[in-house]
């Protein structure tokens, strides 16, 4: 008999502008000790399922139909008091962000002990003893001592171990993990995933793994359900679904996952649309006549160095004080040197806190390096003794940011956002020319000229990233810095944006500095790659060498931790575009 049974579950959100059907009737069952993944892109409705099962669906969300059965009992109709006895005791839950999941004002031991005491007649002293044992079990060193510490004294990975302890300390039969490793670095992610898998196996606990990450699904789950727009489109044994997806949406999702084993010219794209409309073709432009071509001559090819970073070092003040001995700073980037050749894509890869974004910002001129220089086209543009950047150089270096929601001014029309650089640098003869250039640019990044009249909130994350790209192109740059341009996007949107960047680079002869924490993405995009760790460059080599013959142990470690999705053989599906 299954442990959890969802029968035709429907979840609605009543909003001011009508009802949104988040989950449109799904059936799913989980057996004791089984790990089932729910995978889908943002807005697919996967997180609401977890909240609905545990009875914490927040208004305006509500269960609009169907039934939830747990261990032979129907639980969606239970009273709040009865449900509270199930929460924690029978069903545990783990949330995405370990940094905000713990009460900052209570010690770890307090939080575990109160949860144990809540669900059994254990004395506090006994609960504290159990807590020590549990913390040891999830791999926290010195549990006796760390029990008395507060959440802020733990790192992100350690906090997630504490969260896992809290979710499992009352011995539940089912645990719901809502994106449990999304906020973590890849190395920590691997540890947490194997810990969760081990604990579920040892304790014979059923688990629901809600994630957008195919890698996580392939590492952990026994079965997987693929969700799209509130429906489960495909369910099956994980390895089977990953290797031979049957539904067109699963196929498109899998084909968009960047491969770590070989570089492809473009992402094969299977544009899945429910209405079956064909994808639009991009217009190829003639640079000799186009506005974008009217820039300084780009010298092509050769080994010519376009940008050089010389001994870049960046120190941030972490504690200000009048008394010098009390001042503290930390070195985010430590003596970094590399050069980028004209027309290539240079990648920087590293975990969070490795200093890669700081490098990008120093090169862009947003930060002044504490030591070292940035040299662009033979000219020193960044450094303590550098001249302020001339408008001509300023125009040549543009950047695409990580967060599509904060990178556009929400109070400006899209057209004005893209027109701003053109008007600021006087790149158009008249306002009407600026207008037509903007329309053309928006069209060129695949948005259509009509987008100019709207405000950013009318667009999705991927569309906003296209607007960002159009704005960056509007100064006619030679050098484009892409700082995690797709890490906030769904995987199929990521594939589209990366393809667009590849196309634009080929078309305009752009030089790219591409920054990412995601190794497969780096492999797909970059010619040469620098690996960063704690502000230092540990290895610099051609992309093929980094992936096939890594020299530095850290690179090897990163590669080994990378979750691998066995890429399905796309040739068996009909609609894949190369």
């Amino acid at each position, binding site marked *: 008999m299954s442990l959890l049974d969802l029968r035709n579950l429907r979840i609605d959100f009543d909003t*001011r502008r009508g009802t949104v059907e988040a989950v449109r009737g799904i059936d799913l069952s989980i057996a004791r000790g089984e790990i089932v993944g729910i995978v889908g892109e943002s807005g697919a409705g996967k997180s609401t399922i977890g909240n609905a099962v545990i009875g914490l669906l927040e208004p305006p969300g509500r269960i609009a139909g169907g039934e939830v059965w747990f261990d032979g009992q129907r639980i969606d109709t239970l009273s709040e008091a009865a449900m509270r006895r199930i929460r924690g005791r029978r069903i545990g839950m783990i949330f995405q962000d370990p940094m905000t999941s713990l009460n900052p004002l209570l010690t770890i031991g307090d939080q575990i002990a109160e949860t144990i005491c809540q669900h059994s007649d254990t004395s506090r002293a006994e609960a504290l003893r159990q807590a020590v044992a549990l913390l040891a079990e999830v791999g926290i060193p010195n549990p006796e001592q760390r029990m008395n510490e507060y959440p802020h004294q733990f790192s992100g990975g350690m906090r997630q171990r504490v969260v896992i302890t809290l979710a499992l300390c009352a011995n539940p039969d089912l645990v719901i993990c809502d994106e449990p490793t999304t906020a973590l670095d890849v190395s920590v992610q691997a540890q947490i995933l194997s810990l969760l898998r081990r604990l579920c196996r040892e304790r014979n606990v059923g688990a629901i793994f809600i994630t957008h990450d195919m890698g996580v699904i392939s590492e952990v789950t026994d079965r997987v359900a693929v969700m799209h727009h509130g429906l489960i489109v495909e369910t099956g044994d994980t390895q089977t679904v990953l290797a031979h997806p049957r539904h067109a949406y699963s196929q498109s999702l899998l084909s968009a996952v960047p491969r770590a084993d070989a570089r492809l010219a473009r992402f094969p794209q299977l544009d899945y649309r429910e209405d079956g409309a064909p994808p639009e073709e991009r217009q190829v432009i003639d640079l000799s006549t186009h506005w974008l071509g009217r820039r300084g001559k780009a010298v092509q090819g050769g080994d010519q160095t376009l940008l050089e970073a010389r001994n870049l070092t960046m120190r941030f003040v972490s504690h200000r004080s009048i008394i010098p001995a009390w001042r503290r700073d930390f070195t985010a980037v430590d003596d970094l040197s590399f050069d980028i050749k004209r027309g290539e894509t240079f990648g920087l890869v590293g975990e969070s806190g490795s200093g890669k974004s700081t490098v990008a*910002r120093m090169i*862009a*001129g*947003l930060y002044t390096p504490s030591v070292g220089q940035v040299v662009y086209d033979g000219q020193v543009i960044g450094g303590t003794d550098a001249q302020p*950047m001339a*408008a001509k150089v*300023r*125009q040549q*270096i*543009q*950047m695409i*940011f*990580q*967060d599509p929601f*904060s*990178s*556009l*001014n*929400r*109070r*400006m*029309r899209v*057209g*004005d956002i893209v*027109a*701003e*650089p053109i*008007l*600021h*640098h006087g790149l158009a003869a008249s*306002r009407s020319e*600026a*207008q037509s250039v*903007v329309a053309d640019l928006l069209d060129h990044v695949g948005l259509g000229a009509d987008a*100019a*009249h709207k405000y950013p909130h009318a667009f999705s994350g991927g569309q906003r990233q296209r607007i*960002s790209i159009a*704005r960056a192109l509007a*100064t006619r740059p030679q050098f484009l810095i892409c700082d995690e341009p797709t890490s906030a996007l769904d995987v199929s949107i990521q594939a589209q944006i990366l393809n667009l960047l590849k196309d634009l680079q080929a078309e305009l002869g752009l030089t790219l500095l591409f920054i990412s924490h995601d190794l497969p993405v780096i492999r797909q995009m970059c010619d040469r790659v620098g690996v960063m760790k704690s502000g230092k460059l540990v290895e610099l080599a051609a992309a093929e060498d980094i992936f096939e013959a890594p020299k530095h142990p850290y690179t090897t470690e990163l590669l080994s931790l990378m979750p691998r999705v066995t890429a399905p053989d796309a040739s068996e599906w009909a609609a894949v575009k190369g």
Partner: protein
Amino acid sequence: MRNSVFAPPVTRWQRIRQSDLMLSFLESPVTVIAAVGALLMIFAALGAGVIAFHDPYDMASIDIFDSNLPPAWVEGGDARYPLGTDAVGRGIFSTILYGSRMSIFIGVTSVALSLVIGVTAGLIAGYRGGFMDAVIMRIAEVQLALPTILVALLISGILRAIAPPSTMDKVAILVLILSIGLSNWVQFARAVRASTMVERSQEYVLAARLIGIGPLTIMFRHILPNVMGPIMVIATLNLSGAILTEATLSFLGVGVPPTQPSLGTLINGGTDYLFSGSWWITIFPGAALALLVLTVNLVGDWLRDALNPTLG
């Protein structure tokens, strides 16, 4: 955006009508009533000269024999004076209209003053950081140590010491506006600074810097529109606060001179008669003040919840 290159395909009114703010406004009947009430009172005060039955500060139009009349519905009342008259025969209804005109004028101008100072200081402190920030925030801290009423009293006291008493009446209103305005800028500055520090690190600001746009343009054209929400909330709530402060100062005898009445001086002037039974001289101006402040507060409260549910 003022100089948009792109003509909107929908009219501004359509956009406003369909905005979340407007929808949430129409969803809250209390707010709608409050807003209508506040507007009615403001317009009535602005049109005091037209609406009032007589000009209570025109000696020719008052009659000493009409003094201390109770409201019209009480025995002995007079239909010409619906809310009764005061000790010199001025109609209470008319004095309230003229008085609230003064109160609203002082409220609006002093809030405008604190808004301009506070927003500018907050933008600079938040965007520039470092030394400018430290200086502005220290000044704000000192200012915070001294509550509004106290600062206003002090400023008024100092001016009394410097200026000869004969000129006091002429500058009294200006003094009042300055002292209320100068003691309230800190709230704007702190809120704008906090929001600006968040906006400063937003990627759209970095993008603007990469284009080469100067700090002033970034502050006023990019950041300012994005921090308007808290500014509007504080301005509304401060308007009611300023009207209250004006009334309080006038009550304490350091505000508006009795020759140019405000709601505060009317209430103050009436207290002497309260104990002899002429309650209407104090209670009606008091009620008008409370109603005005209450409606503005209701609108401000709603605005705070509607614009940002997490704003304290």
